[in-house]
């Protein structure tokens, strides 16, 4: 199980919780788990998110491992110029 931090305005999709627990060992399991546990979060996941795992940002790497004690933060999709 990992703890995932949710940004302020997205907590409306996670029953007001800024931190939620999800059964996941990879990034894909994390996103699938969030989607299953909190269906209201699905529109945002479909629009795209970035995920910070222990301070490093990941965009699409489904099989990036997540340790049980990893710091995991959901972020708006980061784009550059």
């Amino acid at each position, binding site marked *: 199980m990992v703890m995932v*931090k949710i*940004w*302020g*305005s997205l907590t*409306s999709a996670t029953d007001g919780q*800024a931190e939620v627990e999800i059964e996941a060992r990879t990034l894909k399991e994390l996103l699938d788990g969030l989607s299953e546990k909190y269906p*209201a979060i699905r*529109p945002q996941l479909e629009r795209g998110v970035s995920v*910070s795992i*222990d*301070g*490093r*940002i*990941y*965009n*699409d*790497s489904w099989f*990036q491992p997540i340790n049980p004690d990893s*710091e995991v*933060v*959901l*972020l*708006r*999709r*980061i*784009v*550059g*110029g």
Partner: protein
Amino acid sequence: MPLDDHKAGDARQFKVVGTRPLRPDGIDKVTGRARFGADMNAPGMLIGRILRSPHAHARIRGIDTTKAEALPGVKAVVTRADFDAADDSVADIVDNCMAGEKALYDGHAVAAVAATSAAVARKALKLIAVDYEILPHVTDVDEAMKPGAPILHEGLSNETVPDGVSQNVSHRVEFGHGDVDAGFAKADRVLERSFKTAATHQGYIEPHACLATMGADGIADLWVCTQGHYMVRNTCAAILGIDQGKLRVTASEIGGGFGGKTTVFLEPVALALSRKANRPVKMVMTREEVLRATGPTASTSIDVKIGMNKDGKITAASAELRYQGGAYQGSPVDMGAMTAFAPYDLENVKTVGWDVVTNRPKQAAYRAPGAPMAAFAVESVVDELAKGFGLDPLDVRLKNAAREGTKSSYGPTFPAIGLEATLKAAKEHPHWTAPLGPNQGRGVACGFWFNFGGDTCVSLNITPDGTVTLTEGNPDIGGSRASMSMMAAEELGIPYDQVRTVIADTGSLGQNEVTDGSRVTFAVGLATIKAARNAKKVLCERAAMVWGIDPEAVVWEDGCARPAGENAGKFPPMSLKEVAAIAANTGGPIAGHFEVNAEGAGVSFATHMVDTEVDPETGAVKVVRYTVFQDAGKAVHPAYVEGQFQGGAAQGIGWALNEEYIYGKDGRLQNPGFLDYRIPVASDLPMIDTVILEIPNPGHPYGVRGVGETSIVPPLAAIANSVSAAAGVRMTDLPMSPPKVLAAIQKG
């Protein structure tokens, strides 16, 4: 294969990386030999031109193209009806490239022609009759949010927008942690200020241009100036309803991008015209078209509130950011909200962002999208609070600086970062204590950017004579070809001039992410290093074959294959040239390649220091001295890194002092040319000094961090703080053009 083999603390001695070889593109660019987007021609080529809406907001009731089609020399005319194969994922892009139901801004494309000459094409455009129903328009971000504002898209707001808010708001976002109200209550002083910034353009010298060839068999070729030819391929394929593999895109040399060429404008139109005419079609934008109808950055309206104690400690900070991104959703307000307070270690912080649409061109990325404006607002308030308490602005920033282990304002905990190093370097620099003259002021500000990685492919091939060709898929907008050649040379242990880096077309490599996000030196560099290491394995295997020993007993050092130790045997080293010469005899051509979705890029911080002089009679501002302090992780080619620092500062100077999109009451752009859209020229700027800090990024074998974008984040704030000090009045509205500065002085 593990990617992260850089150990923090390892003091690696580089031989090539960190030196300053001559740039490989210099001679081509100064002699005119370089081939840019408009420098390609084809037999039988037609000229394409676009008809653009003269209205800021209008329903298109009908378009009659019959007279244009009948004009001799016209070979094809297209309207939105020719783009019906586009899938939903590109809906906004298609609508921006060719208006459908409504023209949404002055300059919006409504039709296009391909003709045998530019003169015939221009004449044909005049023969296209468009029946417009003019609608009310709105171009200001705050006005667009008001009840009763003209609505661009019914039902645009998503589930994040509260009931009762204008439908011109596409979404709302909020970040932060702690209790800001409790934090403000503890502060010795709470300061609230509101700020506005104007829309600005990236100002690249080279207008958009392309040459499209699409046959009746659906096979197509496109030559284009772009920051991402793989993105162009994929987007155009989705728009035209063709397989990606049927379209081969070649990137020309590029005359600047800065984010503005990370999307498409002309390209799908040129391909559609070519398909219809069954001939090549060339399209080149005029400067007026570039300014009216490509992608400037957002204009903004930002409220900031910060509580600070008299010892300089920030107790709470909040910001509300309203960004308009033109006629479609997607302004960079999310990134503005995430980066606004990133340089600070805050117990209580909250940012709220609103994404708003207006009747302006669809925004495109501009170098750290969203961050410079947010930094302007936040750093101005920090500056004013610090000075109000009689505190040193750099000391205040050091007191509150984010460090390794800080929970950032946008969520993640920072690993090793370089902000403190830039602040300390600034404090110790002679610029900080240099005397100021009359009407002069000094300003400092910090900035932050994420940087990222993305899909990357590199192929390193060794020629029979032992020189190296490195093939990669990222247009070079910042000197990356030199950096890749240097990293390959470093890994192979050969001279830099033995490596040539080329940018491959989309048929030659797998998917490559756009050149953006300050990603290329990080991601393509990482892939180059890995490709070179793969090639070294093969080189060692070939030497092992010749020596009759186990490949595990061969190492690659200083450009040669060598026996790993005495037990491996006494063989003289084989140089790369020697191994290459017998490649055919030992198994065939020698190469190494690497494909990756490079993740884990390191964030980057900067501190800028600037002195300006204000003419109290005219309000004109002169930049007197400028110094950039930025963390590069590892500067592969220091001169290019310095160039990125200076370029970011130069663009920031223009943005802060002069550049702005000016719209009339009719919603039309009043200054679509470089005469009236005033970007800095060489005579406007002093030499911009640079200090490179190197706090290694653990996610890259050499410690590289992206640098291209962070450099534009602090300048708006640093210059505003400087001008405010020089003028004796706080400036809150960019650009600080002479009339505005004069008015502020007179009012103050």
